[in-house]
């Protein structure tokens, strides 16, 4: 049974239809990536899953249960952690505090246990350890991204959703980030990854979907998608690139 399933989900921003009937699934232990140009509806899809937006029609099932009518706080408690676009770490709180707040959905966690879990996060993201008392706003883009993922992991989710984690980051940081993503999956995490950077995303994903103005146009394995004209068309309107690389 898929861990996450969307059935014919439609969604609106005011009078604009952002999603026009999306159906997709994420199996346990997979990395699935959602690709598409800006404005295609990728973030809307994640926001509809995590409860920040309510779908107009269709259904969203998590572990077999329908979650499309639940609020965001309830959905986190069920095991979906959404790391939104733009990092959005709490700017006035320290790195340690940001990470600790990630566990807010788990009810009362003893202080000592929280601290040891923070230590676990530092093991995964070693760069953050020396920044433990630094305030959120003072971190670089890459550090903030790592922090956002660490915070998202503290909810001990079954499904981790990452929205454009590579946005605005230098290539070398992106590589580090994706190494972490691959590592998390190997430890058993299921990940739904939204990315504009198709190459990076397809280098870690098991399967991918392509969104074009609210419609899912292509689905397949990374190899299938990379060779597929439709993917290039979704981004570059059908122009054929030089036969480089």
């Amino acid at each position, binding site marked *: 049974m898929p861990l996450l399933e969307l059935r014919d989900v439609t969604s609106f921003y005011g009078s604009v239809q952002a999603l026009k009937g999306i159906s997709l699934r994420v199996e346990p232990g997979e990395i699935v990536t959602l690709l598409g140009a800006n404005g295609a509806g990728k973030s809307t899809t994640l926001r509809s899953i*995590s409860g920040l937006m309510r779908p107009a029609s269709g259904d969203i099932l998590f572990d077999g249960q329908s979650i499309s009518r639940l609020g965001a*706080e309830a959905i*986190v408690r069920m095991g979906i952690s959404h790391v939104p676009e733009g990092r*959005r770490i*709490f700017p*006035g*709180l320290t790195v340690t505090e940001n990470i*600790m707040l990630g566990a*807010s*959905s788990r009810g009362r966690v003893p202080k000592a246990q929280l601290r040891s879990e923070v230590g676990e996060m530092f093991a995964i993201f070693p760069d953050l350890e020396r920044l433990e008392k630094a305030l959120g706003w003072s971190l670089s883009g890459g550090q903030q991204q790592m922090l956002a993922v660490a915070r998202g992991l503290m909810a001990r989710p079954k499904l981790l959703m990452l929205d454009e984690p590579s946005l605005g980051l230098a290539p070398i940081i992106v590589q580090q980030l994706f190494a972490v993503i691959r590592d998390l999956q190997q430890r058993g995490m299921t990940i739904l990854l939204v990315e504009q950077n198709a190459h990076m995303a397809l280098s870690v994903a098991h399967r991918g979907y392509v969104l074009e103005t609210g419609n899912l146009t292509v689905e397949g394995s990374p190899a299938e998608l990379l060779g597929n004209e439709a993917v290039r068309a979704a981004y570059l309107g059908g122009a054929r690139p030089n036969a480089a690389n």
Partner: protein
Amino acid sequence: MSNLSLNLQLLFSGLAVGAVYSLVALGFVLIIRATNVVNFAQGDFAMIGAFAMVTMLTALKLPYWLAFVLALALMTVFGVIFNYAVYYPLRNRSFLPVIISTLGASIFMQNAVLGIFGPQPRPLEKVFKTPGFEVAGVFLDSQYLVILAVTLIAVAFQYFFFEHTLLGKKLQATSQDKDMARLVGIPVAWMIALTFVYSATLGGLAGILIGPVLFVSIGMGSTIALKAFSATVIGGFGDVTGAIVGGLLLGVVESFGAAYISVPYKDAFAFLLLLVFLLIRPQGIFGEKISEKA
């Protein structure tokens, strides 16, 4: 009285009155940070707290400390009601309906109290029977000393609560990014309700402290609120330290202004200072110019 003693006296009373402004301003700032709402009824929490104390002391003849605790408890209930009746129905609307709604709440509160207690200002007991004592030619009024002490304790408590408890961190997170707070599982609606409760209690505390000095009247809240708002702007809109510093500064300016410039126009200083800051340095003393994001 020597010039130095006079000035120290003015400084002392200015700081004490300013401390009351700071308490109300703190309540303002917390609500603004959590909900982006400017609560024009903030001062009336002070008024209600003061009237509650008057009732408990004179009508119910309770001992001071019991009355104090009960009055504060009443304010927490009030905060809950205010949150659900005034803020919650309008939480998704633009700022104009919300401002007007808090104004309406202010009118309602003042006139409900008027209906119950009548227009006569009431006296309120000081905390200690002793009038005070003199140090180096300066008379330290006991109530002023209490105000300064309690404000210090409140600020210390607030600092401890926000900086060293998880709940305080959750409140901070809610005011920094509401949607993100929801996404990590923080119950945002509860956090906001808590913020209103805390602000209402702070306001009530301010009223109970300043009541013996000013006389408890229906309009006392409005004046204090406007001055507290000025303090917030002067200190740096949305900044907690700014609210405290702004309040103290305002109290001192008023005190010296009344003595050296004019007594009847004492109230005008708050607004003149506000206008000056708004037009010349709108981010206040501690505020930072927030650069617009692309």
